[in-house]
């Protein structure tokens, strides 16, 4: 199952994209993704930070789910339990 990660915005206003298969993630991050899928309704309720300026906007898209799951967070509302997953997308080769 492919996970597409996108980061946009920031002080510079750039865009970063990466796609990784769930099975290629470390096991702890696979668990985070599984939790994300199981609790998608809760994560979908998170609203964009209205006054965020220069913050990054993160999007995680899980493609082979039906319907397709796409969740969007930003630096003002990123759940702490997702920060290691975001960092993995940003730093892995």
């Amino acid at each position: 199952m492919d996970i597409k990660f996108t980061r946009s915005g920031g002080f510079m206003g750039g865009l970063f994209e990466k796609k990784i298969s769930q099975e290629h993630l470390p096991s702890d991050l696979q668990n985070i993704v599984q939790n994300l899928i199981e609790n998608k309704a809760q994560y979908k309720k998170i609203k964009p930070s209205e006054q965020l300026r220069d913050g990054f906007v993160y999007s995680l898209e899980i493609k082979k789910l039906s319907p397709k799951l796409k969740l969007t967070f930003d630096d003002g509302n990123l759940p702490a339990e997702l920060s290691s997953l975001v960092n993995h997308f940003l730093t892995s080769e």
Partner: protein
Amino acid sequence: MKKCNCFCSIIPPDMVDNLKKNGVDVGKGMANADRGFRMRRKLKIASMGAIQPLVGNANRIVYDCQHTTNRQLALVRNEGAAASVDVSVNNAYDFAGKVREFYRTVLGWNSIDNNGLDIILNVHYSKKYNNAFWDGSQMTFGDGDGVIFVDFTKSLDVAGHEMSHGVVQYTANLTYSGQPGALNEHYADAMGIAIKQYALGQTAQTSDWLVGADIMGPQLQGMAIRSMKAPGTAYNHPLLGRDPQPDNMANLYTGAADNRGVHINSGIPNKVFYLVSIGITTVSATKLWFETLKVLKPMTNFKGFKTAIKKMAKKMVNAGKLPATTIGIVDSAFATVGL
């Protein structure tokens, strides 16, 4: 869609949806307009002495995120406390002091909200975090990855930029999308560079007019994030791509990325500010810009901004607050960028 030459070259359609999701709809714009009106009314009433609002002390409060994404995690320095052993803590504290001083001394504005709001600063956010941001109530700084960027607390103009987003929120509250969003970014850049010049004793003629030059990584020395003097020339390197900022309306970015180009199209008003500063000094230009900010609306676009600046320039010239040459210099600067 025009090509974006920042980190990316392709912006997929689903990203467009994502950006739209993070934009501001008409309903929200109306709510912002109402909020701005109420805020201006409150300031006017307060200035007339009709009420005595509670005024804060504009204290600086620095927290260490300890490389997590938890803000206000560990209090490390409060107003008046001794310096820390942590350079980032001291940078954030000292630069916030310089920003606060500039707003108070030059612009007669008390902290972020003109009501002495405490200045909350978070340092060491996340790991190798290449950014700094304002979230509506506080500032947050990353350490950089050491390759593209270094510690974001090292730059006074970045500190001024982020705190000025707060000031914009409490004044015009410019919507963060399209041209109003580019004006929001422009004001943050203009105030940031004006604060740096003031603190370093520079003039419009001696300043480098570069935003973020102090936080560029080792391979990017001499470059910056934006150039207000020559938008589009701040960087050109394989690590970063090429600076996409236009300096003229003929090259206005009309795509969906970056909240419809808030960090891209800010190059156009940035150039205007540079030209006016060269003509009447940066301090005078900053006063003109700031008085105008107080009357802008959340949805003001570039044309509306030009009209407002010209109107304010006439008012301030007539009041003897700006030189008579200001009006011609402003006209010429806007004409140079195609406005």
